[in-house]
Structure formats: structure tokens, C-alpha cells
């Protein structure tokens, strides 16, 4: 192997990259997404469409209900598209990165959570499930998440996304301190 190939391989096997390099990479990836797919990077539309299509299979009457007609009127009926494979790709890319560096988890319950709520797996899984459900409900009400609003929307200078990013981070920081307090901030 040439020296350059050895260097690239070593970089791919490293556990952590500089946050600025990662940020610049995500910024350039958003150019690619706009240029090739005319689409901002976003995660949660795929979840909404998956839930709608699953719901439509389980109960066909839903397809004539308010959600499907509103989305058709918007020109974005639920479908299996770019957004779905993007989410699948995020899973695969993180799997690949963690395999290359060996950066895979040793514990099931994060240390900060265990300090506050105990190291029982059931409690952590219940918290993760409910927190995630609430987060996704909020994302779909506001029409975006950390990727769709706080990165893609803010970089497009969208008023909605600047408001969402400010509200979301204020609520998240407030909740984190309410749950874990200053003592948690020292331990994290």
C-alpha cells in the first residue's frame, strides 16, 4: 500500500475525528444532497411516512382520512423514497465507522443515567422509548428535527428553523438540568 492509502485507512480506523472536520463534512454533504436530490438532510419525514404506510396497511380507511388527503394536497404523499434510504444509510454508516474503530458499547445503561435512575435496563429502555416518542411527535408537529430544522433549515436561513432551534435547545437544556442538576453536570 502507498503511504496515502495507509493514511486514509488509519483515519477511517480512528475513534474520533475533529468536530470541525465532521461539521465541514456534514456541510458539504448538504451541498451534495441539494445538488443531486434537491433535498435537505432530514431524518424524521421517513419515520412519519413509515408510520403512515404501516397504518394504511393495518387500517385501509386511514388512506382516505385527513392525514393522507392533506399530504396529497401538499404534493408529498407518503412513499418509500430518498428519505428512507437516507435513514438506512445513517444506520449503515455508523455501523461501519464503529466496526472500523472498534468503538462499540460496553454497557447497556449509560453511566449518567445509571447514577440518577439506577442501572436497571427496564427503566432505561422505558425512558428511551417514551423520550423518543415525545421527541418524534414534536419533530413532526414542527416539521423537522436537529437535522431538518437545526442544521438544514438554519443554513437555509429559514425563520421557522431559527425559532425551532432556539426553542428546542432551551427546552432540552432546561430538562437536562431539571433531571440531572448541577451534580449531574459535574459527573457527565
Amino acid at each position, binding site marked *: 500500500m502507498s503511504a496515502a492509502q495507509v493514511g486514509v485507512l488509519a483515519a477511517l480506523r480512528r475513534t474520533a475525528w475533529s468536530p470541525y472536520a465532521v461539521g465541514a463534512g456534514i456541510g458539504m454533504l*448538504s451541498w451534495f444532497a441539494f445538488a443531486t436530490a434537491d433535498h435537505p438532510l432530514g431524518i424524521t419525514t421517513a419515520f412519519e411516512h413509515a408510520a403512515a404506510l404501516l397504518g394504511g396497511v393495518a387500517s385501509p380507511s386511514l388512506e382516505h382520512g385527513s392525514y393522507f388527503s392533506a399530504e396529497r394536497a401538499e404534493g408529498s404523499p407518503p412513499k418509500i423514497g430518498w428519505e428512507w434510504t*437516507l435513514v438506512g444509510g445513517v444506520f449503515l*454508516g455508523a455501523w461501519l465507522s464503529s466496526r472500523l474503530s472498534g468503538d462499540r458499547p460496553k454497557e447497556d445503561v449509560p453511566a449518567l443515567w445509571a447514577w440518577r435512575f439506577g442501572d436497571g435496563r427496564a427503566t432505561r429502555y422505558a425512558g428511551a422509548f417514551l423520550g423518543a416518542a415525545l421527541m418524534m411527535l414534536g419533530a413532526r408537529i414542527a416539521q423537522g428535527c436537529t437535522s431538518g430544522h437545526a442544521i438544514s433549515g438554519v443554513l437555509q436561513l429559514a425563520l421557522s428553523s431559527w425559532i425551532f432551534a432556539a426553542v*428546542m435547545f432551551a427546552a432540552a437544556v432546561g430538562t437536562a438540568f431539571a433531571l440531572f442538576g448541577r451534580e449531574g453536570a459535574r459527573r457527565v
Partner: protein
Amino acid sequence: MFDSPLRLALGLGTGVVFGFLLQKGQVAKYRVIMAQLLLRDWTVAKIMLTAIAVGAVGVYALVGGGHAELHVKPAAFAALLIGGVLFGVGMAVLGLCPGTAVAACGAGRKDAAVGVLGMLVGAGVYVAAYEPVAALGRSLGTLGKVTLPALTYTSPWLWIVALVVAALAMRAVAGSRRPEGASA
């Protein structure tokens, strides 16, 4: 029902790079997200502000050249306030956001996998309760799909230069240290 195979492949390739970057950036981890929310470690902010500044330059250049269009979400105030609060509270309990939860799931974290399942259920609640929730979201009015430059009659490049300066200033202040204890 389906996008073209080319679009599906483009989405997959874009996603693989996105997930790879999130994992290498250490943000697909409960500890790093919570350390940001508890204001102890600024990795998340460094990644996001750099991504926003770099992204804005290229995306506005593409739009200016007619190679892409902006995709702006409507500024419906009640939807943004209610959605933003629910999102923030849920994110602080889960300890991951939607993209980093999917990435953490790929990196083998079981609580993140449970979270991904919860996300699907949360999306289902939204679809099932669509009509009342959408009405509530419109209740404080909307300014539509408006951008800050359009709202203030300024050039977008003024805002983009400010974002680039902010990102460079953050880098100058914080240096390029990696997150401490990156393994947790």
C-alpha cells in the same frame, strides 16, 4: 409509492456518509449529547455551527446558480413552540436526537434501538392525531415559508458571512480539542 432506483441509491450513499460522520464526530453517544445539554462539552455545537456555515455557503451558491431550490418550512408559531418544547424534553430524556439515535443504533447501542422504535410510535401518534394537532399548530398564525433575508429585506450573503465569522470565532475560542473521554 417508490422513488426511482437512482434517487434511492443517492439517499443511501448520502446516509452512509452522514452516519459515518456522526459516529466519528462522537455525537452518536448519550454521554456526548448530555454533556452538551448540561453545558459541559461543546462538541455538538462545534459540529452544528461548522456544518451550518459551510452548508450555507454552498447551498446558497447552488440556489443562486439555479442548480437547487430552497426547501423552507412554514413559520407556524404554535407548531414551532409546541413541537420545539416536546422535542427538547424528549431529546433530554432519550439523550440522542433522531439522526444520532439511528446512528447510535447502528453503532450497537440497545437503548438507542429501543428509542428508534419509540420514534416510529411517536410518528404514528402524529399521523393518527393529524387533524387536531395540525389545527393546534396553526392556532397562533403563520408567516409562511419565509427566510430571514426576505423578512428583513437584506442579502442572504450578509447572514452567511455572519455565520462563517461566528463559526471561525468559535473555533478560535475553543481550539480544536477533541471531546474528553471520547469512549463513553
